[in-house]
């Protein structure tokens, strides 16, 4: 079954070791949702996905990957 993976954890560390809390505050979600995203337990809405990509100043595909 196809799944969506992400590089959020790596991108956080690459951006001045941003904490989960800081990222959550910037994108408008809870820290638990960032944790769930990084653990692959939750697939975000397109809105949240774009918010995360914009926070890291990268394209959406650099944050999220669709794997067959």
């Amino acid at each position, binding site marked *: *079954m196809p799944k969506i993976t992400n590089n959020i954890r790596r991108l956080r560390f690459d951006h001045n070791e941003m904490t989960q809390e800081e990222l959550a505050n910037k994108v408008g979600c*809870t820290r638990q949702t960032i944790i769930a995203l990084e*653990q692959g337990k939750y697939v975000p809405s397109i809105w949240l996905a774009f918010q995360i990509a914009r926070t890291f100043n990268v394209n959406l595909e650099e944050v999220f990957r669709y794997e067959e």
Partner: protein
Amino acid sequence: MAPLQKRAWWGLGIGLVLAIAFLLVFILKGGIETFDKDVTFRLIIDALLIGSLVANLIIVNLPLRQRGMVDERDRLITDRAPRVQWVAVILTLAAWTIALNEVYQETGLMPALLLYVMFMSILIISTLAQSLGILIGYWMMDRNAKNN
């Protein structure tokens, strides 16, 4: 644990305590006949009922309106919680219907006050089921992620 998840646990815990208190007071005070005649008893039961509803409102429902308390993942889970409430209400109604029918079928008469008691019990169960639905939602989200 998400803030809403913590509140759902609190809501469930307090709701259960109040529901058990409601049941104990009702049984210890003499049941439906006493409920009909004793005003103080009725007021105690009403207070327990209102207490459980207010507790649920403060602990579970009001935070849903606060900015920053819930996000899209939390809203997805709370939007699905009514399914559990619906099942709980239907099962409760079925249990009441069967029980009352078995008890009062021969006489064909049922105290009207039982309708009040039925309504109170369904209200309490629906409130508890909302917290349970939220907790089940979080659990299923974790479980489905592991299966994928």
